[in-house]
């Protein structure tokens, strides 16, 4: 990946501001408690949370990159996969087998979505496909709950949730967050390998770059769509497992899509690394803001701050940090 110069400049400026603003705030206001170890503790906590956002954003990126569809149903897919996994597990299927079954179900789901929804709508405008994925969202929400019920379910993978002190006992990091970040990291790296070194992965990239070209070298679009939706389904399952063991498997899981959107615009809709770096920036940014800026204006700013942060980046890079440049010609 080649990073453009101005992207680097923006990133550097952002990093600098992220440290400078809390520091100044601490100097200016007595409400705000600033110490470097605490700052790093918040920043690291934010980065780890950001990885969890990336996990959801990644699903969006995969589908948008290969088919230009803004998949509103990614959140519903996260919920559906987690519900299926826990539901199967409750029926007595051992967890590893339940994961295998759920993977298979997500692939079947991808095939069905391609046949029933996407194929009849091929070549329609983006907003129409977007709306169709909203239809999928409603359907999956209803379907998943019909099958598995609306009660909250515990998903315990045995990951410890205990505070650990690092760097001479100065900085507290939660073990669960570390493990989650590790798993997300592994997923991202394997996806990167998938795109770089497998035939299908290269084909997917070809489609993303140029639909016509991809068709001309003999890759049927419908296969591509099935594959990306299946991969996005698998990513959804991983996100569902991680978020599900954090929050419990319940309807609210579908709401995490809203946390992924600022990540998506910041990183760019079409970039896998963008989703990761976007997640890190949003995660760290919103936590730092909540801790070091919010006390001055009343708190609870995390949500809109993430969007404002993304918006600020867009003013400099309208296509997101790593998104493809939109070139307009006449």
């Amino acid at each position, binding site marked *: 990946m080649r990073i453009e110069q101005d992207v680097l400049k923006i990133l550097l400026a952002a990093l600098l501001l992220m440290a400078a603003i809390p520091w100044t705030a601490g100097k200016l206001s007595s409400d705000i408690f600033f110490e470097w170890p*605490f700052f790093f*503790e918040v920043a690291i906590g934010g980065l780890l949370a950001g990885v969890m956002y990336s996990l959801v954003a990644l699903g969006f990126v995969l589908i948008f990159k290969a088919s230009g569809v803004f998949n509103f149903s990614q959140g519903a897919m996260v919920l559906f996969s987690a519900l299926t996994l826990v539901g199967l597990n409750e029926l007595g299927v051992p967890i590893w087998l339940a994961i295998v079954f759920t993977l298979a179900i997500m692939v079947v789901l991808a095939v069905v979505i391609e046949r029933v929804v996407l194929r009849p709508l091929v070549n329609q405008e983006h907003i129409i496909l977007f709306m169709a994925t909203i239809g999928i969202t409603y359907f999956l929400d209803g379907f998943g709950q019909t099958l598995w019920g609306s009660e909250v379910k515990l998903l315990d993978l045995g990951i410890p949730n205990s505070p650990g002190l690092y760097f001479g006992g100065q900085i507290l990091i939660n073990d669960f967050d570390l493990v989650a970040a590790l798993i997300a990291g592994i997923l991202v790296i394997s996806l990167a390998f998938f795109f770089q070194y497998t035939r299908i992965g290269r084909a997917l990239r070809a489609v993303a770059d140029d639909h016509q070209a991809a068709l001309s070298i003999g890759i049927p679009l419908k296969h591509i769509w099935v594959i990306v939706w299946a991969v996005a389904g698998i990513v959804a399952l991983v996100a569902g497992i991680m978020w599900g063991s954090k929050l*419990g498997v319940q309807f609210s899981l579908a*709401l995490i899509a809203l946390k992924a959107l600022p990540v998506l615009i910041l990183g760019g809709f079409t970039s896998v690394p963008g989703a990761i770096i976007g997640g890190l920036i949003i995660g760290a940014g919103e*936590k730092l803001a909540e801790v070091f800026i919010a006390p001055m204006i009343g708190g609870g700013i995390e949500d809109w701050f993430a969007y404002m942060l993304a918006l600020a980046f867009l003013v400099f890079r309208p296509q997101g940090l790593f998104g493809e440049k939109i070139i307009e010609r006449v």
Partner: protein
Amino acid sequence: MSIKRIKTSIIAAAVISGLIGASAALAADSQFVGSLVYRTGPYAPGGIPWADGFADYIELLNARDGGINGVKLELEECDTAYNTDKGVECYERLKNKGSTGMPAVMPLSTGITYALLDRVVADKIPLITSGYGRADAADGRIFPYVFVPPATYWGGADIAINYIANQEGGYGNLKGKKIALVYHDSAYGKEPIKTLQALASQYGFQFSEFPVPHPGLEQKATWLKIGRQLRPDYVLMWGWGVMNATAIKEAAAVGFPREKFIGVWWSGNDADMIPAGDAAKGYKSLQFNGVGSDFGVHKQIKSELYEKGKGSAKSAENTGEVAYNRGLQSAFILTEALRGAMAEYGNKPMTGEQVAWAMDRLDISADRLKEVGADGLFDPIKLSCADHLGKGRAKVTQWDGSKWVAISDWIEPHATMLRSMYEASAAAYAKEKGITPRDCK
């Protein structure tokens, strides 16, 4: 789209409207009971047991006594999914059903409660909000159709501080203590703030607020501030849905002792503790009803309903959940009001207005509670025209890893202070809405 298809749909519409007329004629001399529930949607885990408890109590009366005084109860649920739009629709759909309409509405949601405030006055249907809604509706002079027994948020906040004072060896020892409030950043979550501020200035503890944006999936920053920076002596929580479990987990993640973490009743559902797992052990919560299923009423429900396969919940084991007991309590309050109304107006289905009359005089005594097998499960309630709340007491309970255990007796809030706060707030509302307080002499 063909003409034929349109024709079919017109016929279908005609058939359906015919059926509506038919079904409306069915209900004869039974008492209609409408129940707004949320068995679906993001908050369903807490809504399902409530709905089950409510339904079970109504069905218990039908199965055991043939209804109330021979008037059979006809229950109809409407699913709001905790969505205000749907809730209003449900209310309007149900309010005229049966021969006398809905006798009272329990919307189970702050949003729906607010949306119905004007409507219930026009429809003369009592709005009973047990442990939620507008605290100042305790002033029955200004809110003739709103009832808030057995407890309000303001009272809840006061009770929590009372409990903390008790733990610390008296109100005098609160001075200099740090107490934080983590709340759902909405109308509901903000309710206790004024009370806590008033108490803080009175007893000299340091009070800080931590809003969590809806829906509260992410609270890392909040808990780093609380657990690593402020390090308060106690944390109170006004949380909702998924926010509760997340808060408890994050509290564990920053090592804040769960024993010093006290939630309001809506942060004390069994469903909230499940996803938190081990982290929830030791966490405390206020409850305005008793916990567990070792009460007479539960035994009757089990024998009359579950053993005959008629129970509403998945299994009889679910009947002890706190949300279930809350549902029981709401049904109990409603049916007691119906009894009161029937004593005045005769044994037939009651209208909302008649039930409101009875609610103004509701008197659930300790003896009555013993009679129905709910001694210790519910607190006695006595309402009047001016007082729509009652004593407003609650208990403190603690999660032992698998169930709630009561760790205090009923705690009574500062009645005089709160009453003057209710009256001031209600008066402001009355001024804004141009309401003339009714005469309660």
